[in-house]
């Protein structure tokens, strides 16, 4: 087991390096750089900036250098000093901007994952045990609907309903009076009151496919001889269900964490923009639009790396839970 974990961690290194190269390439792909968009932005407002100060800025940010030199500078800064570079637009170090937002993104992703699991588990087991009942049909239909409706559309409809009929806003993660407040019981309670909305919206589409998998797996197990044997021996129905077939069917939950994490982060990015959440998504989109490349690049790099770590954890968990999976 230790060898397996060590090997997987080692394998992660080239992956993360590949991610950083890819991120940097994407950052370089954008035509022009931050300075050109700054100059054109100022020009459109009737202001002008002297060529000398442009050159000075270019020098300061190292924008004129060869790409591989810029890449090495960027990566060594991150690895050696935890310095992600400077955000042009905010005129602050990137690291001071991202950690708050990364924190909320991780919180939101973990919350969504938990919701997805609990919801998919309960609904999947119910639909399998009560197959072809009205409840099964209704839930299956809802699951398909959850698959088909993009998260941001649900968010928009929800915003509309709450604004129109309840005259309140569901956006953000805090009520206005708590946004600047220091952390305390009140603020955490307020956070929880707001958090469930994005969690449900993002989780629904994820849960929908998991429900289908859970239902199909459990249906396969329910007719196996060991279930009949257990029933014949007089085991209570709910104990029988949870003790044997559900345990067999629950495997996909663990094995899908790996690839549901990228989907969660992606879904979060779009929904967060609609609901104006203080997570990474909205800031990433803005950074991309204004070509604030170190900020955008750092987000893409960190989100991708986190996903790789999540995948690693799910692999380890799966190997630990299911002895049939070989460590090779």
């Amino acid at each position, binding site marked *: 087991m230790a060898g397996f974990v060590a090997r997987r961690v080692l394998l992660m290194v080239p*992956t993360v390096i*590949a*991610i950083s190269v*890819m*991120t940097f390439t*994407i*950052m370089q*792909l*954008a*035509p022009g750089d931050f300075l050109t968009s700054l100059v054109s932005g100022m020009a459109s407002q009737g202001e002008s900036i002297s060529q000398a100060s442009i050159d000075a800025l270019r020098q300061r940010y190292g924008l004129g250098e060869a790409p591989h030199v810029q890449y090495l500078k960027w990566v060594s800064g991150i690895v050696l000093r935890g310095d992600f570079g400077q955000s042009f637009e905010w005129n602050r170090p990137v690291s001071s901007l991202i950690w708050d937002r990364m924190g909320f993104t991780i919180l939101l992703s973990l919350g969504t994952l938990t919701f997805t699991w609990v919801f998919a588990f309960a609904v999947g087991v119910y639909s399998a045990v009560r197959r072809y009942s009205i409840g099964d049909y209704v839930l299956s239909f809802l699951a*398909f*609907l959850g*698959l*088909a*409706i*993009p998260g*941001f*559309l649900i968010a*928009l*409809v929800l*915003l*509309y309903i709450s*604004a*129109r009929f309840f005259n309140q*806003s569901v*956006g953000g993660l805090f009520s206005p009076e708590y946004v600047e407040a220091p952390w305390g019981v009140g603020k955490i309670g307020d956070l929880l009151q707001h958090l469930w909305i994005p969690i449900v919206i993002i989780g629904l589409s994820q849960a929908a496919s998991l429900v289908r998998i859970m239902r199909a797996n459990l249906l396969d197990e329910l007719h196996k001889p060991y279930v009949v044997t257990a029933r014949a021996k007089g085991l209570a129905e709910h104990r029988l269900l949870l003790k044997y077939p559900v345990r067999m069917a629950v495997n996909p939950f663990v094995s899908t964490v*790996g*690839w549901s*994490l*990228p*989907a969660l*982060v*992606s*879904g979060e*990015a*779009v929904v967060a*923009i*609609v609901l104006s959440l203080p997570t990474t*998504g909205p800031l*990433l*989109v803005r950074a*991309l*639009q204004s*070509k604030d490349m170190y900020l*955008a690049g750092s*987000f*893409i790099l960190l*989100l*991708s790396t986190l*996903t*790789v770590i999540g*995948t690693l954890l799910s692999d380890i968990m799966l190997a630990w839970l299911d002895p049939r999976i070989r460590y090779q």
Partner: protein
Amino acid sequence: MSARQALAPPDVLVHEPVAAEPEPSVVVASQWRLMWWRFRKHRLALVGGVVILALYLVAIFAEFLAPNDPEATSVAYTYAPPQVVHVYSGGAYVFGYKSVVDTEALRRTFTVDENTAFPVQWFAQGARYKLWGLIPLNVHLIGPVDPSAPMYLLGSDRLGRDMLSRIIYGTRVSMSIGLVGVAMSLVLGVLLGGISGYFGGSLDTVIQRVIEFLRSIPTIPLWLGLAAALPASWSPLQVYFAITVILSLIGWTGLARVVRGRFLSLREEDFVMAARLDGSSQLRIILRHMVPSFLSHIIASITLAIPAVILSETALSFLGLGLRPPVISWGVLLQEAQNVRSVALAPWLLAPGGAVVLAVLGLNFLGDGLRDAADPYG
């Protein structure tokens, strides 16, 4: 399903004999016929198939079906609410609008005015257009008798453009971007998945690592980065193709996995060995013997991959990083509904979302049915 069950004729034939067909025996039926029999039993998939067919027909005949020119603005009718077509024995009509100036919010709002009525007819003469850019016509499926009368069946947007016409035109881009995007992922997926599965060895390992790598990256941030890199000076057509390429960059991995899996299992089959012993070239073995036996699976996977592309395009365009306004797609239309204020003012701006849901649901059901039918012996 056991072998005996598989040989029994499908029960559709038992209680629903098709008169036109001369009772073909299941034993001699071709693979595609068996698939059709099986597919036909899946009611939801049939419904999905009809919906998708209808959507593609809408896309093809968009100019004729749309009651208005999608670009025609009208200052007189901004944010006009949807009308209802009232039918009576002598024909049909829609009510007109009356505008009220809201002195507090300083804007004009429109309400349906039940005192004015405009007759509506089939095959009405309206705005001129060129069908497929070739045939000049001015007949629309439905429209007001008087071409200047207001008709907004799904309301109008900020500039007084007809939402229904815009959604109909948007079908063209949104439904085709799914096809084009999936076609590109298909080429990549079949090529790389095929190489990976057929040759195996270190080539397989490398391709599998690349796939794992691509799958481990959150797609939306990656797409956003790539889409932001598109030059603003590009023409709409260039942006369209660039976006499909970006979307298929990730999409091919799923198809490659399916193809690889099929190749791995087929490689060991007797008929492949027989073809090899017969001296067939590798290309011939792949194209003539292996591909036909998993073609149906590929088709099912494609059907399930299209909705993903449609949803991604919608999300990207919605964020303003995908297709840009002169192009009409459902995502571009939804961009109008991005903030709560306009949604609260004009909830009908969300209507393109309905089209997205319809298309994605239809394709999912169709793909589900095709996947079940793909293996008639299973």
